[in-house]
C-alpha cells in the first residue's frame, strides 16, 4: 500500500513538472520571422527582420498587400547582439526556426570573414536549408519589404523567385549547408544567389497607387566568392552558363541565332505555291529557341604536355519551341544545322563565362580543383594551395552536342509555304 501511495505521488509530481516545461513557446509570445537582412554600417551589424503579423482569417481578405508583415531592426556589435537588441524595441522574441532567407547587404559581404556568420550555424533555431542571397550594390533592408508578385508576404515572394530556379537557370539557389560545404572545399569556391531591386513599369493604370515609383525584385545572376571574399558577379547569361557547366539545369531554354540559309542540297525541294506570304522576307527577330528536355554535363581535367586543360562536355536533348527563319525542318541536314547553331551558341556562352571567371575572378567556382584532386591526387597535394592561380591560367576545351527530338505542334516555320 505504501509503495502504491509513493508511486502515485511520484507520478503526480512528474505530471505537474512536465505540463509546462521551461522551453514552452506560446504562439502569442513569438515573432515568427521569414527573412533576415544583415548589414554592416559604421562598425555595427544591423539585423532587419521580416516578421509575420498574425491576423484572423476573416480580416485577411480586406488586407492590403504587405500588411501581413512587419519589420524591425536591431543594431549590435555582432549578429547575435543586434538580434537580441531587437527585444528592446519589439514586444515579441524573434523566432527564426521558420526563417527561409537571409539577405546579406553588399557592405556586410565585402571584407566579411566566415567567422562573422558563426551565429547562423551555431544557433539551433536557424535551419541549414535557409537560402543565402546577396543584395547586389544595396543594403539588405533596401531590398526587403517588396512583394511585386501575387504572394501577400514579401518573404514568400522572394522564396518563390528562388524556387523558380527550376524553370530558369539564370539564378542559383544556394542554402547555408551548400555554402558551407563549398566554403571548406579546397577545389571549389562558393557561389551565392543575388537579389536586386528594380523599378517596375506601371502598366495597370486602373490601380491607384499612392507611391511615385513601384519596385520589383530580381534574383537574376550570382555572386562568386573566393572562400569568404566576394570576387564578382555573374550576370543572368553567365549564371546560366555556370549552371550548364555544373549540370544543374533540369529545364530551361536556349535561344540562339537561326542559321541563315537552307543547306539542303540532297532532297528534292518542295514546289513553292503562289502566295502573298514572302518567305524570303527577313524577320525583325533572328533568334530561335530550344526548350531543354534533358541536359548532361561532364567536367574533366587533363594534363596534356605539362599544361592543365579544363574540359566541359555538354549533351543537350531539346524541343524546338520557336523557330524564326526560313529552313526546311523536315530535312535532317537542315535540322543538323539548327542543332549546330544551338551548340555553337551554348559553346560561346560557356567559353565567355569560363574566361571571365578565369581572368576576372581568378577563382574556381566550377569545382575543377575537386576533379583534379580525384584524378591526380599526388599532384594535387603539391598544387592545392595555388589551385585558383593555376585554374586561371589553364587551357579550356568545351564540347557541346545538341539533339532536337521534338518540333512542337507544327513542322515547317509558319512563314514558309510547303507547296505540293
Amino acid at each position, binding site marked *: 500500500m505504501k509503495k502504491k501511495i509513493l508511486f502515485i505521488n511520484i507520478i503526480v509530481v512528474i505530471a505537474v513538472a*512536465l505540463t509546462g516545461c*521551461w*522551453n514552452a513557446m506560446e504562439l502569442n509570445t513569438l515573432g515568427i520571422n521569414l527573412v533576415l537582412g544583415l548589414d554592416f554600417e559604421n562598425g555595427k551589424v544591423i539585423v532587419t527582420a521580416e516578421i509575420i503579423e498574425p491576423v484572423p482569417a476573416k480580416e485577411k481578405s480586406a488586407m492590403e498587400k504587405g500588411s501581413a508583415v512587419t519589420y524591425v531592426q536591431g543594431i549590435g556589435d555582432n549578429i547575435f547582439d543586434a538580434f537580441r537588441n531587437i527585444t528592446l524595441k519589439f514586444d515579441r522574441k524573434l523566432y527564426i526556426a521558420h526563417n527561409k532567407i537571409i539577405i546579406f547587404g553588399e557592405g556586410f559581404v565585402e571584407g566579411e570573414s566566415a567567422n562573422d556568420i558563426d551565429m547562423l550555424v551555431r544557433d*539551433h533555431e536557424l535551419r541549414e536549408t535557409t537560402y543565402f542571397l546577396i543584395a547586389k550594390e544595396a543594403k539588405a533592408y533596401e531590398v526587403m519589404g517588396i512583394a511585386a508578385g501575387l504572394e501577400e508576404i514579401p518573404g514568400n515572394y522572394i522564396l518563390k523567385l528562388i524556387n523558380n530556379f527550376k524553370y530558369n537557370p539564370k539564378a542559383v539557389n544556394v542554402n547555408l549547408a551548400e555554402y558551407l560545404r563549398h566554403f571548406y*572545399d579546397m577545389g571549389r569556391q562558393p557561389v551565392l544567389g543575388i537579389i536586386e531591386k528594380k523599378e517596375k513599369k506601371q502598366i495597370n493604370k486602373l490601380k491607384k497607387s499612392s507611391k511615385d515609383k513601384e519596385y520589383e525584385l530580381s534574383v537574376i545572376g550570382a555572386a562568386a566568392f573566393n572562400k569568404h571574399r566576394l570576387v564578382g558577379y555573374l550576370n543572368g547569361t553567365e549564371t546560366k552558363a555556370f549552371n550548364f557547366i555544373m549540370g544543374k539545369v533540369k529545364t530551361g531554354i536556349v535561344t540562339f541565332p537561326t542559321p541563315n540559309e537552307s543547306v539542303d542540297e540532297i532532297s528534292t525541294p518542295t514546289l513553292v505555291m503562289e502566295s502573298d506570304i514572302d518567305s524570303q522576307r527577313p524577320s525583325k527577330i533572328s533568334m530561335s529557341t530550344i526548350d531543354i528536355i534533358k541536359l548532361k554535363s561532364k567536367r574533366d581535367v587533363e594534363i596534356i604536355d605539362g599544361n592543365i586543360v579544363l574540359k566541359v562536355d555538354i549533351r543537350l536533348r531539346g524541343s524546338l519551341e520557336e523557330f524564326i527563319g526560313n529552313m526546311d525542318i523536315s530535312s535532317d541536314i537542315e535540322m543538323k544545322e539548327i542543332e549546330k547553331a544551338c551548340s555553337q551558341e551554348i559553346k560561346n556562352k560557356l567559353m565567355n563565362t569560363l574566361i571571365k571567371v578565369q581572368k576576372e575572378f581568378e577563382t574556381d567556382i566550377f569545382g575543377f580543383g575537386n576533379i583534379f584532386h580525384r584524378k591526380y591526387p599526388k599532384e594535387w597535394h603539391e598544387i592545392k594551395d595555388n589551385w585558383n592561380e593555376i585554374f586561371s591560367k589553364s587551357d579550356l576545351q568545351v564540347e557541346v552536342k545538341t539533339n532536337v527530338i521534338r518540333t512542337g505542334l507544327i513542322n515547317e516555320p509558319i512563314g514558309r509555304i510547303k507547296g505540293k
Partner: protein
Amino acid sequence: MENLENINKISTYQVILLIIIYRVTIAFTYLPVVNIPPGNQDIWITLLMSIPYTILLCVPLLYLGNKFSDYTLIEYTEKISGKIAGKVISIYYTGFLLLLSIINVATLVEILNSALFPETPTWITTIIMLITCVYIAYKGLKSIARGGEIFVPFILGVILLFIILGYNNYDFTVLLPVLKDSTFKELNIGAIDSGIKFSDIIILAMIPPYLERKEDLNKIYIKSIIYSIFIIILLVVATQAALGIEYAKHTNFPFFTFNRLINLYDFIQRIDVLSVVGWITGNVGKITGYLYFTSVAFSQTFDKNDNRPYIIPIAGIVFIATLLIKDRRSILSVGKVLQKTILITSTIALFVLPTITLVIYLFRKDKISNTNND
C-alpha cells in the same frame, strides 16, 4: 527444470540487438568517428579496418568469457586473480561502468539542452531521464532485453529512413579519391582508436551467465561488431556525402544536422523530430543497461546477492556527477578530454586488465580448475 532456468535468461538475438544499439547510439548521437585519423573521406575504410583490431584487442576478454561462461567479468576476475587483486580489478570495472553511465547521461543531457531545451535546467533533464532508466533497470535484464527487441528495430528503422529520404542531398564525389589522401599509419591509428573505443563490448563480458546459449558468445561478439560497423559506415557515408568532409567535422551532431536538411517535395520536411525520438529512446536504453550492469558489478564486487538496492544510489551518483560535469563545460564540443578519457579507460578495461587476468589464469590454470571442480 531447464525451462525454469531459462526464465531469467536472454537470447542471443536480444544480446546482439543490445550491443549493436549501445554502439550505434554513439554514432547516431555525435558521430565521433568523423574526427578520428585520417579525418577525411577514408573514414569508412578505417572503420572496416577496425574490425580485426577490435577482435584482436578483445581476444583475452573473449577467451576468459568462454572459459568462465557461468560467471560475470567481476566474478571470474576475483576467481583468477585472488581476493585482493581481484577486488581491485573489480572496483576498476565497476568504476569504468559507472563512468560510462555518467558519460552516457551527460551526453544525452547535452544533446537535449543544446538542440531542444536550452532553457531547461540540467537537473530537470537529468532527473527525468534517470527516473525512467531506474524504473526499467529495476525490472531486470530480461525486461531490458525485451524492450530492446522493440526499440532497437525502431531506431534502426529511423536511421534507414533518414538515409533514404536524404538521397537528394548526397554528393558522393566527396568520398573520392579513395585511399589517396591517407597514409597507412593514419588509417591504422584511426582503426585502433575506433577498435579500442568500442567500450560497449564490456557488457558482453558481464552477460555470459544470463545467456540462454552460452556457446553463442563468439557468434554474438563477431555479429555485433560487424553489424554495428556496417550501420556506422552507413551513417558516416550519408553524413559526409550530405555535409561534406569538413562541415561534418565542425558539427557537434553531424547525423542530426544532416537530418535537418531533408526536404522532399516541400512537405516531407522538419522530420528531424523523429531523430530526436530515436536519440532519446536509444540513450534511455543504453543508460538503463549501464545502470543495471554497474549495480550488478557493484553488488558482485562487494559480495552482495541482490543488485537492485544499489540502482538508486548509483543513479544518485550519476545524477550528481552529471550536474558537476555538465554545468562546468560542454563535453561534446570541448570533446578532446572526453575522447582521451574514453580511450585510456577503455584500453585498460578491454585490453590491459583482461590480458593480465589471462596471463594469471594461464599460470594458475590447474589450481583454478581444481577450485572450480571443488
